C-alpha cells in the first residue's frame, strides 16, 4: 500500500510537483500517465526515497519514506527511467551484484537469478557484457534487477520506452502475470499501453493530478457525453430529422457512408441512446447496418482532461 499526500517539490524556481495526492492498495496496478515533464519521474523518485519532497508525505506500507528510508527501499523494486546498468559487467555479474546488495545469497540468490532470467527472457545473452546488449535486453535486464529480491512493490518508470512492439508485449505480459501478488506503479506517456494492463490510472499534468480513477469513469467525467454510431439503409434526411427529435440526442453529426447513411449521435450518459435508436428504427422500418456505443479512447480522455486543466489554470 502506498499513500502519497500533498506532495510538492521544486527544482530551483521550477515547480515540479504541486500538492500531489493518491493512493494504491495492496495488489493493485496503477498506470501513471502524463506528458513528458509532467512530474511522473519526480513522484517516483520520491516514493523510492531517491529524492526528498519539499512538502507532503509518502508512506509505503505505513512507513514514512523520510523517517525510515531503508525499510521502504527493502520493499520496493525500482526501475528508473534511465536504466541503471553497469556496462562493464555481464548480466549474471550485474544481477548477482544487485541481489547481494539487496541481501540475497547462496541458494536463495541462485533461485532468484534463475527466476528473473526466465521471467525476463535473458537466457540467451546471460554471459554477454551489458554494454553490448540491444536496447530491449538492456531494458529487460533493468526490469530483472527490480525483481531480483521479489519485492512486494514495483515502481517502473517508463518500462517499455524504446522497445519494439513484440518486446512491449512481453513486458506487458510480465506485468500482468505479476498482477494480484504485487503492488505496481508504472508510468508511461503512451496511452495505449495502459488499458491492456490495468484499469486504474492517475493522470498528472504540469505537476498536478488532474484525474484519478478507472479509464471508463474518467472518460465519462471528461467527455460529458456518450456517443453512439448509427448506420441505416434509409433516406438520410428522414433519419436525421428523426434522430434529432430523440430526447436523448443533444448533438448529431452526419458521417460518410458507403451505402445508406451514418451518424454520430451524442447524448448524456444517463440516457439509453442505443435502446432509443433501436426502438425508433423498428417503428420506422429502417434496416440498421450499425448501432453501437463507441467508448472514448484514453487518448480522447487524456486530451480533454489536460485541456480542461490548462483552461482552469488560465482562469485562475
Amino acid at each position, binding site marked *: 500500500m502506498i499513500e502519497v499526500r500533498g506532495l510538492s517539490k521544486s527544482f530551483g524556481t521550477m515547480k515540479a510537483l504541486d500538492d500531489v495526492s493518491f493512493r494504491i492498495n495492496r495488489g493493485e496496478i496503477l498506470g501513471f500517465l502524463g506528458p513528458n515533464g509532467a512530474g511522473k519521474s519526480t513522484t517516483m523518485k520520491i516514493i523510492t*526515497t*531517491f529524492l526528498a519532497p519539499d512538502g507532503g508525505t509518502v508512506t509505503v506500507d505505513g512507513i514514512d519514506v523520510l523517517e525510515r528510508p531503508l525499510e521502504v527501499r527493502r520493499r520496493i523494486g525500482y526501475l528508473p527511467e534511465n536504466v*541503471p*546498468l553497469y556496462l562493464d559487467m555481464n548480466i549474471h555479474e550485474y544481477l548477482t*551484484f544487485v541481489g547481494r546488495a*539487496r541481501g540475497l545469497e547462496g541458494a536463495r540468490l541462485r533461485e532468484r537469478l534463475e527466476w528473473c532470467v526466465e521471467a525476463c527472457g535473458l537466457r540467451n545473452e546471460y554471459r554477454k557484457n551489458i554494454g553490448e546488449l540491444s536496447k530491449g535486453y538492456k531494458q529487460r535486464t533493468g526490469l530483472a534487477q527490480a525483481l531480483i529480491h521479489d519485492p512486494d512493490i514495483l515502481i517502473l518508470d517508463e518500462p517499455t520506452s524504446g522497445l519494439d512492439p513484440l518486446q512491449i508485449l512481453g513486458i506487458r505480459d510480465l506485468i500482468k502475470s505479476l498482477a494480484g501478488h504485487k503492488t505496481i506503479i508504472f508510468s508511461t506517456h503512451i496511452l495505449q499501453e495502459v488499458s491492456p494492463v490495468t484499469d486504474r490510472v492517475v493522470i498528472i499534468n504540469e505537476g498536478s493530478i488532474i484525474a484519478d480513477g478507472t479509464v471508463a469513469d474518467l472518460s465519462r467525467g471528461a467527455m460529458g457525453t456518450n456517443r453512439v454510431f448509427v448506420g441505416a439503409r434509409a433516406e438520410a434526411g428522414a433519419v436525421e430529422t428523426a434522430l434529432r427529435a430523440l430526447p436523448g440526442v443533444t448533438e448529431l453529426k452526419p458521417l460518410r457512408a458507403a451505402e445508406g447513411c451514418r451518424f454520430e449521435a451524442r447524448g448524456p450518459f444517463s440516457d439509453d441512446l442505443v435502446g432509443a435508436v433501436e426502438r425508433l428504427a423498428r417503428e420506422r422500418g429502417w434496416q440498421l447496418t450499425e448501432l453501437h456505443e463507441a467508448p472514448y479512447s484514453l487518448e480522447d480522455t487524456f486530451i480533454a482532461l489536460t485541456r480542461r486543466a490548462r483552461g482552469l489554470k488560465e482562469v485562475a
Partner: protein
Amino acid sequence: MRSSLTIFRREFAAYFNSPIAYIFIIAFLVLNAGLFMTGFFLNGAADLRGFFGNLPFFLIFFIPAVSMRLWAEDKRLGTFELLMTLPMRTADVMLGKYLAALAFYLVALAGTLTLPIMVGALGNPDGGAIFSGYLGAALLGALYLGIGTFTSGLMRDQISAVILGIMACFLLFVLGIPAVAATIDGWVPGFGSLLQNYLGLSSHYEMMLRGVVGAADLAYFLGLTVVFLVLNALWLEGRKY
C-alpha cells in the same frame, strides 16, 4: 559492513574490468621507478628518500585519476539512482567505493616493493625508514583519495572531477611548502605558518620519511581523510533535498 563489502567487490573488479587499471599501474611503476633510478646512482645512498620524496607531487595527478570515476561514472550511467535506492546507507556505499580505490592504489604501491629489495641488495638501508616511508605513502594516498572521492561526488563528469581533485590536492601540497608559508606570512603575519602546520602535508610526510611515526602526523592524515569522506557522504545525502 556487509553492504560495503558488496560495493567494494564490484568497484574493485571494475578497475580491473577495463584496461585503464593496467595502464595506470604500469605508468605508476615506470614513472616512479624511472624518476627514482635517474637520481639513485648519482646520490649513491642506499635509501628510498628519492622515491618517497617524489610521491606527494606525483600522486597529485595520479590519485584523482584513480578516484574520478567513483561517483561521476555512476551519475553518468544512471547507476547512481540504483545505489541510492538500495537498502544501504549512503555512508556504506561510499566506504565500499573508497576502500576499493584505496585497495587499487595499494596494489600499485605494492608493485614498487622491488625497489627496497634492490636497495637492500646493493647496500644496507634503514629498514625502519623504508617501513615508515611506505606507511606515509599509504596514508598520503588515502588522504588524496579522500579528496578525490569527494570531488568525484560533486561532479557529473569525470574530467571535472579529476581537475577539481588535482587542484584540491595541489592546495594541500603547496600550503606545506616553507617558501609559500613564508610568502603568506608576509601578507598576514603568522597565517602562513599556521596553514603550513595544520593543513600543509609536507611537514607531516617528511617526518615519516625520516622514520618517525608520530601521533600528530597519523592524526593529520587520518583525520583529514575522514573529514573529506564525511563531507562526501553529507553532500550525497543533501542532494536529495
